[in-house]
């Protein structure tokens, strides 16, 4: 009975963070794995939990031809990495970097004007849970660092 009473508040509270589309990406992640032919690859970890997410990119003719991510993380970090792939595959590298930068800005800058593309916008609830921002931005930071290491710089981080 106690948990019945909690049920309502639980839903009201958490569903802002854990939107259906996030849980879907978490349970059915897209592009999970590695690229044997990756041109860019970088792993980052979240020092609080020890989670690590690595991003593999295959850049061809200045475009992100393919994307994979690997590692383990919480629902937020996995879903975010999964969504990021949808948002960058096929894009010119500068635009891919811009997606990642814009998403980090969207979550960390209260004055942000950004609207992240595709499913990423569903992660907006993370703004109310500052402890989870690191989770949500892990793959994005990895992608930016991977590309920056080859000359496509985003903002310093």
């Amino acid at each position, binding site marked *: 009975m*106690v948990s019945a009473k909690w049920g309502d508040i*639980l839903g009201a509270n958490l569903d802002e963070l854990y939107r259906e589309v996030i849980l879907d990406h978490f349970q059915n992640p897209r592009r999970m794995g590695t690229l044997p032919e990756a041109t860019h690859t970088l792993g980052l970890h979240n020092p609080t*939990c020890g*989670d690590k997410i690595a991003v593999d990119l295959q850049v061809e003719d200045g475009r992100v031809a393919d994307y994979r991510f690997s590692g383990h993380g919480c*629902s937020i970090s996995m879903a975010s990495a999964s969504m990021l792939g949808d948002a960058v595959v096929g894009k010119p590298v500068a635009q891919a970097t811009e997606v990642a930068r814009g998403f980090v800005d969207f979550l960390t800058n209260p004055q942000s004007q950004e609207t992240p593309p595709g499913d990423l916008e569903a992660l907006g609830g993370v703004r109310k849970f500052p402890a989870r921002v690191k989770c949500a931005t892990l793959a994005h930071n990895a992608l930016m660092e991977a590309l920056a290491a080859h000359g496509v710089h985003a903002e310093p981080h």
Partner: protein
Amino acid sequence: MSLPSTTTAPSWTEVAGAFPALRQTVNGHPLVYLDSAATSLKPTVVIDAVSEYYRDYPSNVHRSVHTLAGRATEAYEAARARVAGFIGTRAENLVFTHGTTESVNLVANGWARRHLQPGDEILLTPAEHHSNLVPWQQAARATGARLVYAELSPEGHLSMAALRAAFTPRTRLVTVAHVSNVLGTENPIRQVVELAHRHDAVVVVDGAQSVPHLPVSVTELGVDFFAFSGHKMCGPTGIGALYGRPDRLRETDPLLFGGEMIAEVDRERATWADVPYRFEGGTPNVAGAIGLAAAVQFLESVGMQRIAVHSRELAVEAAERLAPLPGAAVYGSLANRQAVVAFNLAGVHPHDVAQVLDSLGIAVRAGHHCAQPLMATLAIQSSARASFYLYNTREDVDRLVDGLREVGRYFGR
């Protein structure tokens, strides 16, 4: 709000009533605080002792002959004596530091770097907190000594057999947590000391998780050094202590130079003040020491023996009730544990477990608990952890168990 000053110990309801943080709701629910292993809540008497210092006699210590300074110095030194007494030693063997981490670094720098030779061995376990591991890695690197790990038993306990087997003629120092902050294991320090001293090895104990929960006498344990933190035992942040056996303290170099830790200084060199002052460079955390003494007095008024039984019972009950939950893994032995229960639910990341619990007003920690080598040994990345203390109740265990059912439901949908 202080405890009623009866000669009988306060009831648990009275105890919980002394902690103002519990008088709040979190996300619409009365707070259940199960993160005391990270830091404990503070009773009003501690908050008041700190405020009183800042309000009435916010003076520096050891330095002036004026009245406020006299009052501050007296309170600071009385705090030293009280905290020393709490762990069964005398004031002159107790160094105030800023916490366990500084205490261990002081020994690793000031004692180990001076006494270890290339090839010497530092014996420890894979369950150590980073604060009782990384300083030894650094000391080993600086001296050419090496770290030797005594593996844990299958239940995740320090095994005396493994420890015995790990000793060699080069073992110079053994360091181990008194109570593990992940497994809740209480390690048999007296046996460790007996064994180590037979090999002429020095014993350093990380008491961060034991001093808050168990009656501790460093004298009875016979350790050489013993480190702990105030903030985990109802005291302020930024204060902790190091006990050192008098002969060991005298052969330890200071870590922080400057301020009142000196005897004489000229342009080229300096000599040190007596032990323990030589280890307290700079203006100390006066408010912290005074608050810690108030915390000790509070804990004594409740009774350390009672506290030990209370938090252990809650933790054991929680462990036993969590273990049968679908997909649950509880780390360490079920029955043999102190106040800590680390666990995972299959398919749900600890962050998500903690997040759902938080939405129910239940505070637990999620992460590697500053014990990455232990996580690797357990073959996990991280875990959730519920930790109990004197202000927790059986209802808190009920709420935790119910909350974890909600977690399962939420991520199972």
